């Protein structure tokens, strides 16, 4: 696809972009070149802060508020975007260059019907009249295999699921048949089973209309399916660029190799202690409901000391609700929670301080889980003071000890505030806060999903080390099966509030599987560029639609 020379569509040379922070302009993209031909798909890949989205938007002649294009040239189909007027640049957007955002749920206007948002650009550019545009939208919905293509557009965004919205947004980008679409992490917010449909739909439609695309993602396996060429970025600089095949097989730069090697961390699987060892936590036939809506039914599993039980499933499968039942935040409607064989009161309000101390949580968004106005030493010191009654010098030495445990220099971090820390450091503080209570059991709720892969790996290694040293039991909630593969001892697969399969990790990852486990496992993208094609062939096109409605 990429090797034949086609007409030049986009030529970016020495692009420099500045961002405004702390009352001065700082360069965040340092001279990047990019060349794209008609019908070609380029993957832009890198960690957060690499400048992927900023470069993608610059290709539309657009800079977010607080950013400005400060140098270089952006030539789209012979037109120099850095020097043309804003109204000429605007006339390209939506008509010849379209954008697909990361979160369709947030990027559709909640106040308007989907189809009205779809037809806005074609009507505005007088490409189609309203009725024609609506007809065309329905046809695109059908091509993207949305259910009820005639009717779905007339719903409001909140009435449609996330995966369907993401496809509707791709359809919207196609409304004026643009020459170039910028896909900005279009599947990052989706479950693996939904992601696969969206990927297939995007790839099909880009091929059908021979549209060029810039595909921005941090997920290598995804970009391998979509792109003809891949460009790797790091902190606003290009690391290297090559066609997908070459890039996967023989990356040149060390940084690229390190990205490729991220999933290498794996620890040996432990098995349950023999004899009459009592599990640290046992969930026995738990049912739970939010109001009248039943969300958990008959959930049971055990977690033993020193072991990690991974709970996996799509969003809405009841993973976090189970955690809320264990901690007593949501009292189960029936069933029992046992800790070390002792029956726990259903509500946290009735539990003793000692019972509460033993089970701690680490949250997904360290950003929102840490109070930005409280110093690190107080964040970590508070549970140590509350549960252990530590004061003064004893408290300080305990906080120092905890900071040492999470590999942050105590003298450097003791008096700092969360906003001064990076994402990975904040998550470490979250871990230290859980450890401060000296628990026996920690619930890790998607603790690595908001982090870049290299940082996430550091967190996983830290958690593993702490488990060995302190003999902790983990309940690891995640939707990322690669994480499960690297750290779990046992796996519990949940779907719609029920446990569909449970057992030791090695068994779970070797066939035969429960059909749902199989669907989950086969939906995880692999680095093989032909993976998507192979999976789709195996499943048959119709099955994908079904997977969406399951």
């Amino acid at each position, binding site marked *: 696809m990429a090797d034949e020379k086609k007409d030049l569509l986009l030529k970016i040379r020495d692009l420099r972009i500045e961002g405004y922070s702390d009352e001065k302009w700082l360069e965040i993209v340092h001279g990047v070149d990019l060349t794209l031909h008609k019908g070609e798909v380029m993957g832009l890949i890198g960690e957060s802060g690499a400048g992927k989205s900023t470069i993608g938007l610059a290709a539309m002649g*657009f800079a977010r508020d607080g950013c400005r294009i400060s140098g270089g040239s952006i030539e789209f189909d012979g037109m120099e975007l850095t020097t043309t007027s804003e109204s000429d640049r605007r006339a390209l957007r939506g008509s010849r260059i*379209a954008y697909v955002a990361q979160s369709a749920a*947030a990027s*559709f206007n*909640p106040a308007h019907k989907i189809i009205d948002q779809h037809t806005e650009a074609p009507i505005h550019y007088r490409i189609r009249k309203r009725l024609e545009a609506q007809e065309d939208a329905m046809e695109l919905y059908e091509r993207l295999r949305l259910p009820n293509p005639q009717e779905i557009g007339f719903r409001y965004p*909140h009435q449609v699921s996330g995966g369907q919205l993401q496809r509707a947004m791709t359809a919207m980008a196609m409304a004026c048949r643009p020459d170039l679409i910028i896909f900005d992490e279009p599947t990052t917010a989706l479950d693996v089973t939904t992601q696969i449909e969206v990927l297939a739909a995007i790839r099909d439609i880009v091929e059908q209309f021979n549209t060029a695309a810039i595909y921005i993602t941090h997920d290598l396996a995804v970009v391998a399916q979509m792109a003809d060429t891949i460009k790797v970025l790091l902190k606003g600089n290009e690391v290297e660029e090559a066609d997908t095949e070459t890039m996967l097989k023989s990356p040149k730069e060390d940084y690229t190799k390190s990205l490729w090697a991220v999933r290498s961390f794996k620890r040996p699987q432990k098995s349950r202690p023999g004899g009459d060892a009592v599990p640290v936590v046992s969930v026995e036939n738990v049912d739970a409901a939010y109001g009248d809506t039943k969300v958990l039914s008959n959930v049971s599993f055990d977690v033993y000391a020193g072991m990690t039980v991974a709970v996996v499933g799509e969003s809405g499968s009841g993973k976090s609700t189970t955690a809320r039942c264990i901690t007593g935040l949501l009292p189960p409607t029936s069933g029992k929670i046992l800790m070390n064989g002792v029956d726990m009161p259903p509500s946290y309000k009735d539990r003793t301080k000692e019972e509460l101390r033993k089970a701690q949580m680490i949250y997904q968004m360290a950003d929102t889980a840490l109070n930005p106005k409280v110093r690190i030493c107080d964040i970590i010191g508070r549970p140590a003071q509350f549960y252990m009654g530590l004061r003064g010098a004893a408290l300080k030495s305990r906080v120092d000890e905890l900071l040492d445990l999470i590999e942050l220099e105590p003298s450097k971090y003791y008096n700092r505030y969360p906003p001064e820390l990076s994402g990975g450091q904040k998550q470490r503080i979250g871990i230290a806060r859980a450890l401060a209570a000296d628990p026996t059991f920690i619930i890790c709720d998607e603790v690595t999903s908001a982090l870049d892969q290299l940082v996430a790996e550091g967190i996983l290694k830290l958690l593993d080390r702490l488990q060995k040293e302190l003999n902790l039991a983990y309940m690891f909630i995640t939707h990322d099966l690669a994480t499960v593969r690297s750290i779990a001892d046992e796996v519990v697969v949940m779907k719609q509030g029920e446990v569909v399969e449970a057992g030791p990790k090695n068994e779970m990852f070797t066939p035969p599987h429960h059909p749902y486990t199989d669907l989950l496992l086969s939906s995880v993208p692999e680095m093989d560029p032909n993976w998507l094609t192979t999976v789709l062939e195996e499943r048959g096109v119709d099955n994908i639609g079904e997977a969406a409605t399951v």
Partner: protein
Amino acid sequence: MGDVLGIVLKRLGLGLITLLVISILIFFAVELLPGDIAEAVLGQGATAENLKAMREQMGLNEPAIVRYLEWLWGAVRGDFGVSLISQRSVADTIGPRFAATLFLACYAAVIAVPVAITLGIIVALLRDSVFDRVANVLTLTSISSPEFFLGYVLVLYLAVKNPLFPALANVNFQDVGTFELYYKTFLPALTMVLVVVAHMMRMTRASIINLLASPYIEMARLKGTPAWKVIVKHALPNAWAPIINVVALNLAYLITGVVLVEVVFVYPGIGQLLVDSVTKRDFPVVQACCLIFAATFILLNLAADVGAILTNPRLRHPK
């Protein structure tokens, strides 16, 4: 929509309870004033015997709680008692005055609300421009000047130095034609417009600008939508809830806060009646006026809540 109806009924019920509490507060606040109705009515001729007879006649020797309950029972049936000054029923005294105040409030609202929202949209569109700053300064000035002062300034420039409008608005509703009515009441209406526009305009601006960082606004811009359309079509529909709340609060102010404006322009509204009744210790009228003001606040706030719900697509179109 059944949910909305449920919320409205619940809020109406709560409103009634609020009104009851307020009626208690008003009644006993009036009780706390030095002297009683008998003294107020008799004034200079208040001999001990006269007072005794008067108290007997008015039932003032009953305990306060009994008198409150009697008053409440009357109020529930629409009978607020008899004015001590005119000896006419309170309902007849207040009726035309309240209608006059409502007229002036509507007159001001019909000008103020569209002007405020349009200006709010324009300054949101031209944010941080000279126009935005000038509008900011002017509205802040008008919002921070007391309304009687604004009224006198308008009289000075639009009635005295340039005799464009009459300085007094002591209209008699039966005798004036429609045009003359609007003409004569223009200055008090304009004063009130100036007082309320700033607040509503600034809220419109703030709630629109608040939304401009949303991903769907960025999406609209990336679809090539012109800037004015981004604001009017994509931001405004999601900004209604706070705007409606401020509008309702200001409408309530137009009815209950006009006391000074009515006095300045000698306009025969409920505000002037209230001032007169307080000075003359016409307690039944004072109580009824306060109750009407309270009910106005409660009803307009309820309307704002319902409006905020109705503009939320998630509530209008449940899954």
